[in-house]
């Protein structure tokens, strides 16, 4: 019973904070609300008996990545977004792009619905596997990550490397050494 209370409390907080992230005019508040959302997610992981994932979430997302976000927001000193001053000539505001956006949004909702339906029909206990091993433990997670899911793991790291190289290439000005 306390677990389900915590679940609704934390997931409500996560959803509310995420919704407010989009609603804010001030990017600084958006970043802070995103941190609240991440913290609520970490709380959900703890409820699901995965303290390691929860702490990784706090350290990597809420701790490191969001500090970087804050850094960038502060460095650019982004002004408050004003609806009236919004650039209507921006390429993303063209009707063609809006239509693509609508299609993508519908696709996303359909996909989410499909995934949710599948999870509900499975009805499996969360946090445990069929053989009774607890996924939340660091030992078990490391083992699974480097055996069963080693391809996905390596592919993800290559993907991140590609993104990093891409960022360096894009940020490098012509003529720099």
């Amino acid at each position, binding site marked *: 019973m306390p677990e389900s209370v915590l679940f609704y409390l934390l997931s409500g907080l996560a959803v509310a904070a995420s919704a407010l992230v989009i609603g804010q005019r001030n990017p*600084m508040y958006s970043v*802070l609300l995103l*941190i609240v959302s991440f913290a609520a997610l970490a709380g959900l992981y703890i409820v699901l008996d995965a*303290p*390691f994932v929860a*702490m*990784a979430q*706090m*350290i990597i997302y*809420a*701790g*490191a990545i969001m*500090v*970087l976000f*804050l*850094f960038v927001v*502060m*460095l650019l*000193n982004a002004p408050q977004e004003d609806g009236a001053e919004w650039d209507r000539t921006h390429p993303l505001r063209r009707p063609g792009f809006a239509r693509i956006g609508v299609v993508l949004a519908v696709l996303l909702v359909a996909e989410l619905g499909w995934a949710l339906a599948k999870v509900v029909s499975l009805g499996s206990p969360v946090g445990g596997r069929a053989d009774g091993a607890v996924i939340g433990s*660091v030992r078990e997670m490391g083992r699974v990550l480097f055996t069963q899911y080693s391809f996905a793991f390596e592919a993800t790291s290559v993907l991140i490397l590609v993104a990093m190289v891409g960022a360096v290439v894009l940020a490098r000005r012509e003529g720099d050494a």
Partner: protein
Amino acid sequence: MDQALLRPAVIGLMIFIVFNALIIASAILVYAERKIMGFMQQRYGPYLVGPHGMMQPFADILKLLFKEELRPKGADKWLFTLAPVLAVVAAFAAFATVPFGAETTLFGLLDEPIKLGVADVNVGVLVVFAVTSMGVYGIVLAGWSSNSKYALFGGLRASAQMISYELSYATAIAAVILLAGSMSVREVVDSQTGFWLGFIPKWYIFLQPLGFIIYAIAGVAETNRAPFDFPEAEQELVAGFNTEYSSVRFALFPQAEYINMVTMSAVATDLYLGGWHFPFVPEYLGWLAFLAKVGFILFVYIWMRWTVPRYRYDQLMKFGWKYLFPASVINLLVTAAMVLYFNA
């Protein structure tokens, strides 16, 4: 007496003691810092309030309590108030999973022995790390919400410094976790009992000398202390992130900084210096050994502040990314190989 009632009472008492000990510790550190600085500069330091000026920190805090709270006109009302609270809450909360003594029954008062420490969780090392990394938001937000260029630069520096040194810090800790085979701080401490060759205590500082140095340097940078006190850097930024703060809101920042120093030293003691284990000290006095070790590290902290000049900002970044981080990665790889070789 009823054990079912006594146990929560003892745990509640422990929370109360730890909370107040941290407050007192920051008062002692204020005094110690000024006194040690005085001796290093051939002066007496605070001398007038109380015997040998011992009441000076309390006089300081009283003075700050009665000062007017100012807020710059263009400051963000909410974040300006939230920032110092955030900093100090994170500082207090981080100590929750730091154990400071062996199991005890409090001289037979309890049937089941109780662990000295507020909470013992199986990912305790990560909890300390996660909560301390929340503390930087207090500094960054203080810098941003003040609507002042000096404060903004202080906040910017704090965030960049945090990102740069957190990596080395975590990688150094990971090597200790590998050796101990556990993420619980208590289990890491307990794996350091016993002796090599009968007289060298089995502390991880002897297995991880490089790791300890990396931890210490990154720890000083994480707590924004000299020679890495860039967010404040009074010669360049007036007072950095807390330029616009006054009264109690201002007092919370040094408070958070001193508590963070205590946490950093306590974690160093637990991970590298054998925690409450010390040769020839019986286990029930272990917490005294723990306090002595923490006190020594804190003394070195202050000693360093008044001896080593501040780095330049580009030197800080260069040192962090080009030397400290590669060294910590090599340290982790060698440790992992050694653990694999000797345990296989």
